[in-house]
């Protein structure tokens, strides 16, 4: 069969070396002719005046950035403000009442204490908690974000920020994969396939973790609400809380650019390649349809994953808290071991242990922290796992963390920073491995954010303690 290839090579030699370009040009010329014959644009305004006007504002040198800030801030504020009441309801129903009923049921049936503990205090409680904490914000956040997406706004963000990415030596489409990362980092990493150059694709893969994924939004929102928002008068609390969340998002963009820049000047050097971005026409979003698809497609999918991860994690949490080694539980030993590093980072041993237990899904970080704090935080008071039944809402979670866990504003701020800067969840790590097929780059993508998180948190803690 190779003689055919030889013949092709021989013919190709006889043609000038731009044969490829000539073939393509001929094809495109035919297409242009056919289009010209078939399309009547006589009645056509080049672009709709509405679109033009919108673009003038949304890509304006001042108003473009104002609009970007207001839109993203608005999305977070609606999420924070809107999720409070339904979250409380779910909490009362699932965690307070549901847990009591279930526990009473198990006791009535004469189930052994170990079984009741593992299934009800471990598996059920962790799962119920995840649903109560996560479902309402997700059910609000995803539709809002999807509306922005469907409207055609996100490519405008890419257009506005392109120069920053170009300066950082990154591909122009990286801003799009970054946007995908705000939904889910695993999806964002997969989306980097739209980047053809391997060098630029690796940069996009490694930095995708700096887009706050939906699993991390609840942690940020909760910390922003119960700690940062509490610093100001109640009337302003919502705005300040949303502002704190936006600040972390902007910091994430900054870290993305800085890390991209550093990588493209060191281990991933090379030319930046051409790309094509298009600004699609604005399309009026169909609200009901968007609600439906984003709740079915995103919210429930993500929630299912969280629940699947939460159930075994709940069992692990219960086991490490209740299986004793010597004079204390396994969890207590681990927390004691992690405490010095935790202190150095302005966090604590429980938070670090939670990040180990919750590696399958960031969604369960807060529930894990609260459960561990309740079981370990106040041994003197002899708190049992059942104590969390007392908790009603965000404020009570806050008071538990402060009184039992000894949290300060520093702990909350550093947890927000660590939420941004830590290893990707196990699903994302697996996706990175699938996409890069390289142990080296998977390790870099996993450990680089963790190292950054350590440095940033330790620096902030050091400065904070110096000042106060």
């Amino acid at each position, binding site marked *: 069969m190779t003689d055919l*290839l030889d013949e092709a090579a021989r013919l190709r030699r006889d043609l000038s070396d731009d044969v490829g370009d000539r073939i393509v040009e001929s094809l495109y010329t035919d*297409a242009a002719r056919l289009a010209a014959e078939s*399309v009547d*644009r006589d009645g056509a305004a080049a672009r709709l005046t509405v679109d033009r006007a919108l673009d003038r504002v949304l890509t304006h040198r001042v108003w473009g950035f104002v609009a970007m800030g207001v839109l993203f801030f608005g999305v977070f504020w609606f999420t924070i403000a809107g999720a409070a009441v339904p979250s409380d309801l779910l909490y009362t129903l699932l965690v307070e009442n549901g847990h009591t009923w279930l526990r009473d049921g198990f006791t009535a049936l004469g189930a052994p204490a170990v079984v009741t503990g593992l299934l009800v205090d471990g598996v059920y409680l962790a799962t119920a908690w995840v649903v109560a904490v996560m479902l309402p914000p997700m059910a609000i956040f995803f539709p809002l974000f999807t509306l922005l997406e469907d409207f055609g706004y996100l490519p405008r963000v890419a257009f506005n920020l392109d120069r920053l990415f170009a300066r950082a030596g990154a591909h122009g489409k990286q801003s799009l994969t970054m946007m995908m990362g705000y939904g889910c980092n695993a999806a964002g990493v997969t989306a980097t396939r739209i980047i053809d150059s391997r060098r630029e694709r690796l940069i996009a893969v490694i930095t995708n973790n700096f887009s706050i994924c939906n699993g991390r939004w609840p942690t940020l929102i909760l910390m922003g609400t119960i700690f940062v928002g509490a610093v100001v008068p109640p009337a302003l609390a919502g705005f300040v809380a949303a502002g704190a969340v936006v600040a972390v998002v902007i910091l994430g963009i900054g870290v993305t650019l800085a890390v991209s820049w550093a990588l493209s000047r060191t281990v991933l050097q090379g030319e930046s390649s051409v790309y094509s971005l298009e600004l699609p026409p604005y399309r009026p979003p169909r609200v009901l349809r968007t609600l439906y698809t984003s709740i079915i*497609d995103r919210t429930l999918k993500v929630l299912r994953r969280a629940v699947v991860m939460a159930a075994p994690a709940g069992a692990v949490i219960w086991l490490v808290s209740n299986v004793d080694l010597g004079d204390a539980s396994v969890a207590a030993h681990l927390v004691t071991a992690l405490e010095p590093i935790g202190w150095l980072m302005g966090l604590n041993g429980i938070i670090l242990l939670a990040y180990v237990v919750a590696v399958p899904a960031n969604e369960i970080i807060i529930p894990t922290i609260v459960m561990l704090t309740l079981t370990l935080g106040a041994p003197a008071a002899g708190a049992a796992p059942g104590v969390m039944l007392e908790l009603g809402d965000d404020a009570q979670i806050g008071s538990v963390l402060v009184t039992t866990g000894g949290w300060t504003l520093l702990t909350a701020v550093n947890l927000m920073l660590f939420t941004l800067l830590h290893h990707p969840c196990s699903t994302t790590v697996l996706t990175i491995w699938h996409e890069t097929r390289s142990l080296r780059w998977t390790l870099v993508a996993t450990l680089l954010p963790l190292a950054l998180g350590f440095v940033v948190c330790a620096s902030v803690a050091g400065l904070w303690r110096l000042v106060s």
Partner: protein
Amino acid sequence: MATPLPTPGVGPGAGEACASCALAPDAARLARLGLDPGRYSYVVALAGNPNTGKSTVFNALTGLRQHVGNWAGKTVARAEGGFSYGGVGYRIVDLPGTYSLLSTSADEDVARDVLLFGRPDVTVVVVDATRLERNLPLVLQVRQITGRVVVALNLVDEARRHGITVDVRHLTRELGVPVVATAARRGEGLSDLLAAIEQVATADDPPAPLRLTHHDPELERAVSALAQQVAARFPSLPNTRWVALRLLEGDPGIEAAVRDGTLGDLAAPTTDTAAEAAG
């Protein structure tokens, strides 16, 4: 390498009972490409530029709710689904959105491989009625590979809004395949699209692949000469001119297919064409 199974004397659609056995070699071929060889009679591939509403058409046909984003390059992974029409099962594969099949990106390779080596029974090319010129290069390239094509002229509602009219009859005549106006977001034109898909899937004698002549005589001579050689080597390959063009350009994917004989597999009569010839 899978060996062709013995050919039963019925074609696809001849009877539900044997639809899957008649398709077994196709199934093996599709499985090699990572497609699910489930129970269905026809395979439909969905091609199109980014941002033409391709995923909306996919969702409308399958009833799935794959999220549709309003930007380029969103369908990164290949989505698959199924639907049934006229009592016959169709498997539908949503290809990545690409501007061409010229192998300048991984997405284009995926799309090209499915169209060339997967040989779908119907390829639906979704085009944006408001930007026809940008979309036609892909249509022409698909038409150079196969005649089993339906063009879904999508977003006609948006075109109307912008005061753009498209001469569907002229397009149909020039492309030699059905062109159906749709507005998938509103469900407009979907029944026409399904009917066109059925018509192309069941056609015994699909149009030949499109032969584009090159205005450049030197290039035209080289293409014709090489196409003759390709035809001599693979007598039943339908798209010899296109393969010749790709070889002239030194397309690594096609060169590999020549070298390892995959192109020869395509040239061998498949089960369904053999069955059709027998019947």
